[in-house]
């Protein structure tokens, strides 16, 4: 049983590092934001594994949810600003 939880933790740690790397290395900003949200959700699982469900809840709601939505909205605002002619169509 120990080996199962250990292998899950190793997988989780690997996935965290991978998603963090993808967030930083993505060339497209929208992909980077989606990977940031994925990182936040994996971090939620990691906090739960560390028996800190309170932090996990906050991470899921604020870190992954609201921050991700804010970043996506900011990206949308930047794109709208860059092409203002489309808005009036």
């Amino acid at each position, binding site marked *: 049983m120990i080996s199962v939880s250990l292998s899950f933790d190793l997988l989780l740690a690997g996935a965290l590092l991978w998603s963090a790397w993808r967030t930083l290395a993505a060339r497209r900003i929208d992909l980077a934001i989606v990977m940031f949200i994925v990182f936040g959700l994996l971090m939620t699982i990691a906090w739960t594994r560390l028996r800190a*469900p*309170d932090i*996990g*809840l*906050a991470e899921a*709601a*604020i870190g992954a*949810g*609201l921050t991700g*939505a*804010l970043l996506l*909205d*900011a990206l949308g*605002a930047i794109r*709208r*600003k860059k092409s*203002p002619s*489309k*808005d*009036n169509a």
Partner: protein
Amino acid sequence: MKRWSVILAAIALSVALILAILELGPAGIDLRLPVAENMASSGVTHPVTAVLLNFRGYDTLLEVAVLLIALFGILAVGMEPLPSLVKPADPMLQRLARFACPLVIVAGVYLLWAGAFRPGGAFQAGALLAAAIVLLHLSGLWPGWGTPSWRQRLLLSGGFAVFLAVSVAMMGFGALLEYPQAYAGLLILLIESGLTLSLAAILAGLFLFLSRDTGGNP
């Protein structure tokens, strides 16, 4: 060449940090025992809530103030409104948002109530309620916010005001932010309810004031 030296330096730093963490001794002060001993006088049964709102209420009070000041900063910049979204949202998305919102609100209120005895609390509940507002806004059902009205201002600062008022009113019983044992549970619930509403408004405000899209697509 430069790339590899940066990668090597990063790996060396990670190894050094990991070694440093492995070498850390046990924590100098173990606060678990004092918290467990004083749980009975905190008014709640979940240790995290007891620490956040009773033993270290000062930190939580200032955290809320920081969030409020961050929102003031955004409002002070005073950006011009942008034209509304390019196209009205998908009716399917609007339908889903209408369906999801009541569930999110129920989950938020549950988290607020659950904070007294299990993981949950005002911050998480507020974030959920804010997420519901953001969802409605993104699907075009809730217009963005322009200059806040009096009612909105009251809502934004209400949680902090209630927290401060309760802690000042309780000064007669002892120090600031100290609750009498008999009413501690009730007072914490009152503070958390105020905080939930205010935090929802503040977190959603970060989004809706910034969106500068006061038209919406009703």
